[in-house]
């Protein structure tokens, strides 16, 4: 059990309440090296597993010769499809019932390079690694379809549910006075958390303990339970700290099944760590995308029609949809609209979720296209955005709950100095550096799933908050301590928060930027229930100093219970607990609707995503908004691009802790700079391999790539979006960064790059 307490120094007195800039309370553990991440446990007798991956992208395995590996010192088991303990297929994350077929985490038929085919388990990591190199695999290889640029991949197939249409986009385009049409492309991109994936699996009888970094303890635990046919309660998953996820640690993986199978077969704990190169194929990142966008407009730049056709890669045997119509369908008002999307199967691992899946590439398309339209009709890129401002959700035909995008444009432009921009391309220069200013907007929906939390008031006055929800750096520990402290009326230092353990009250996935809002809501509710019980105790208990008072007359401030009738007299929570002989007050609350307060719906809510509400369910359309203003400097001889200055204005509603929210925003912006200028999974067209599967070749931003970033909050509390007024934070800020940079590069150079990343060979 990991307990985070808040006994630390901090700044001013406002720190403790929600909205204060409290330093993160899990910080001391992280800066001293005592935070215990998943792979840092040492159960007795632990063995080490190393996964072996296919070296071909398409074909089948003819034979696996494991004799040399089995003979290698220290080797305990070479696991192959032929000797692996059979397990069942589990319910998927949507809650769809599984087919009654075995689940085979090690493949015989190969559909992508890097597919797990065997594993070596040995006494030490070094032995397992060395023995894995001795396993000889014979394949029958067929020619892979390496990407959707391979003509044999075809056009893929239409995903009907992604189609959005109103008006008559074709007819309006045909008659529009101004018409532009271009294709925009993004490559495969990878999550690259600095903590590689992996787990330790430990069986004790039919109980399975898993130390595994997880964005969704309850969902993943359900899968493990179903794989092995054991009760959900028999799985204990611990993930108090996660070394980054960005969408990649939310779902169970094949290597997870392999480790648990090996541990069961060997009857000893097994640690399986994915190598850095394997993090490019053991799970998927963002798929490659392409979008063709046609805009029809008046000569003044007012949109008349948008036609959008998108496609993303998926794997040969599964469906991954990167919703490319998500931003283009709501950012601007247009009377005519048509968006359709295909997915194209290729020989790749199934793509996964990477920060703002859908919104991110969708914004790259429309935010570049609207910039092109601005130049086409000769108006300012900021003005064209205001001219086409969507006053309500044009797709759902509902009012926005809050949309502070106009305020964001104004605040960002002012802070950036947008007015100083010379509108002509290639007009701003310092020495050999061409300077460009670019702007682009972004948005991310507010997703909502009910949450659950336990709040306890202990006899010594300590407040305990518990949930299986997780903190991978978003600040969950800290904002939940602030929520409970404010709701009960205690100093934040007296709050202890426990997270990331399946034995605690349930939580849905930490994804879709929903966790902070739903968990603060649940903790708020549970804390108020605990507070009410404490007040009731103080009034009713014969041993309480307040026993003669009427209800609703007591207040709690700074951990002291106060009576308004007797000004100046106060008794601490601990004293009331002592006098009344109570060891604890406990309130377990969830935010499920009344009609779903039963075990089946409760389980379904936390172990599938089937109850997650869409941003347009209800009377309003709920979204966060942002705008990025970028200055780039492009070397006139070499075409190297550097972001030299950036101002972003963001509307995430109410910020529960601005210090931590700003960090998340900046993190998203920095990932966006990487996406714009550096990140690209390069696929070998002959062999279907991601060739740059390491951090020396798949480039993510370094410190030297990043200038000072200014972020401005323009949000106001939005209680349609969440109980306490927050909207989405974590995934918002990356959206719009790449198009803002591409637009700035166009302004600097006159070269329009429509395919990410914007690298020098595209500019010279």
């Amino acid at each position, binding site marked *: 059990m990991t307990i985070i307490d808040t006994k630390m120094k901090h700044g001013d007195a406002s720190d403790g309440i929600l909205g204060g800039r409290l330093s993160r309370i899990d910080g001391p553990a992280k800066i001293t090296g005592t935070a215990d*991440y998943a792979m840092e446990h040492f159960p007795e007798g632990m063995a080490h597993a190393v996964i072996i991956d296919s070296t071909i992208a398409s074909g089948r395995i003819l034979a696996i010769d494991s004799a040399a590996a089995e003979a290698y010192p220290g080797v305990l088991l070479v696991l192959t499809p032929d000797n692996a303990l059979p397990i069942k297929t589990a319910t998927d994350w949507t809650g769809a019932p599984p087919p009654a077929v075995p689940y085979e985490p090690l493949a015989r038929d190969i559909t992508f390079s890097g597919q797990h085919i065997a594993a070596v388990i040995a006494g030490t990591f070094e032995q397992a690694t060395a023995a894995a190199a001795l396993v000889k695999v014979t394949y029958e290889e067929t020619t892979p379809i390496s990407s959707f640029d391979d003509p044999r991949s075809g056009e893929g197939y239409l995903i009907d549910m992604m189609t959005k249409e109103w008006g008559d986009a074709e007819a309006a385009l045909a008659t529009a006075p101004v018409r532009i049409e271009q294709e925009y492309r993004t490559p495969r991109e990878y999550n690259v958390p600095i903590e590689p994936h992996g787990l330790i699996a430990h069986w004790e009888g039919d109980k399975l303990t898993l130390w595994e970094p997880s964005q969704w303890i309850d969902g993943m635990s359900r899968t493990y339970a179903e794989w092995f046919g054991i009760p959900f309660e028999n799985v204990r998953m611990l993930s108090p700290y996660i070394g980054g996820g960005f969408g990649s640690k939310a779902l169970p993986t094949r290597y997870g099944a392999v480790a648990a199978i090996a541990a069961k077969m060997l009857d000893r704990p097994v640690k399986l760590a994915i190598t850095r190169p394997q993090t490019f194929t053991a799970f998927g990142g963002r798929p490659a995308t392409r979008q063709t966008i046609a805009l029809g407009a008046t000569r003044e730049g007012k949109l008349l029609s948008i036609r959008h056709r998108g496609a993303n890669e998926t794997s040969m045997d599964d469906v991954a949809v990167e919703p490319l119509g998500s931003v283009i369908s709501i950012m601007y008002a247009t009377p005519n609209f048509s968006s359709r999307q295909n997915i194209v199967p290729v020989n790749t691992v199934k793509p996964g979720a990477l920060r703002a899946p859908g919104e991110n590439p969708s914004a790259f398309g429309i935010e570049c296209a609207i910039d092109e339209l601005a130049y086409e009709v000769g108006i300012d890129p900021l003005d064209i955005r205001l001219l086409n401002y969507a006053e309500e959700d044009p797709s759902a035909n509902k009012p926005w709950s809050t949309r502070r995008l106009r305020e964001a444009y104004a605040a960002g432009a002012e802070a950036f100095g947008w007015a100083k921009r010379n509108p002509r391309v290639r007009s701003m220069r310092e020495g050999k550096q061409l300077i460009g200013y670019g702007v682009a907007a972004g948005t991310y929906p507010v997703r909502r799933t009910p949450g659950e939390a336990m709040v306890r008031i202990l006899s010594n006055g300590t407040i305990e908050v518990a949930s299986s929800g997780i903190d991978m750096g978003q600040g969950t520990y800290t904002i939940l301590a602030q929520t409970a402290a404010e709701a009960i009326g205690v100093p934040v230092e007296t709050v202890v928060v426990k997270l990331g353990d399946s034995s605690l009250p349930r939580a849905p996935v930490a994804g879709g930027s929903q966790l902070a809002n739903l968990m603060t809501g649940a903790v708020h509710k549970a804390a108020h229930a605990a507070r009410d019980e404490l007040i009731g105790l103080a009034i009713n208990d014969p041993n309480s100093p307040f026993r003669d008072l009427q209800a609703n007359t007591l207040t709690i401030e700074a951990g002291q219970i106060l009576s308004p009738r007797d000004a100046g007299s106060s008794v601490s929570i601990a004293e009331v607990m002592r006098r009344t002989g109570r060891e604890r007050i406990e309130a377990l609350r969830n935010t499920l609707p009344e009609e779903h307060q039963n075990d089946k719906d409760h389980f379904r809510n936390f172990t599938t995503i089937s109850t997650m509400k869409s941003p347009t369910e209800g009377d309003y359309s709920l979204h966060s908004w942002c705008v990025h203003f970028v200055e780039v400097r492009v070397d006139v001889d070499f075409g190297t691009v550097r972001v030299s200055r950036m101002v972003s204005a963001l509307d995430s509603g109410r910020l529960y802790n601005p210090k931590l929210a700003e960090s998340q925003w900046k993190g998203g912006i920095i990932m966006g700079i990487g996406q714009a200028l550096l990140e690209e999974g390069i696929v070998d067209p002959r062999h279907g391999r991601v060739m740059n599967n390491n951090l020396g070749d798949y480039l993510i931003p370094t410190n030297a790539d990043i200038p000072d970033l200014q972020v401005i909050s323009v949000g106001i509390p939005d209680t349609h979006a969440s109980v306490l007024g927050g909207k989405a934070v974590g995934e918002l800020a990356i959206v719009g960064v790449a198009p803002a940079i591409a637009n700035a590069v166009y302004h600097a150079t006159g070269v329009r790059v429509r395919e990410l990343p914007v690298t020098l060979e595209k500019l010279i």
Partner: protein
Amino acid sequence: MTNETILHLDVNGQTQTLTVEPRVTLLDALRDHLELTGTKKGCDQGQCGACTVHVDGERVLSCLTLAAQVEGRKITTIEGLSDAGGDLHPVQEAFLEHDAFQCGYCTPGQIMSAVACIREGHAGSDDEIREYMSGNLCRCGAYPHIVEAVREAAKVMS
């Protein structure tokens, strides 16, 4: 290859004796054999900096260093950075104050690098800090706050 060797390592001022194969890296010796897990494994290829420790006061990548190479030299890890009284190092304090991390996984390496960066005299300007802290990757994107923290810690340390 199962020949094991006995190593005596000076880690955080204490002599540690361990019996390991010669191919064990300093990183794995620290994490798996001495259970000093503050030093992180991010890539095991010398590309991310998460495994940064000090050897005789200089920053090295422990994943590219064999444990056997550093016998007789002074190894300092994040666990040994605070003074004996348990007070945080000024760099640690500054990281907390400036929120120079999120998930925390690259953080011990960033802090060990930052201490050395300041000691080397490479914290003279923000640009210099950025350059000399670029061997440590952070995917959460804490870079601007890392620069602030190093700048402020350098003032305290001088």
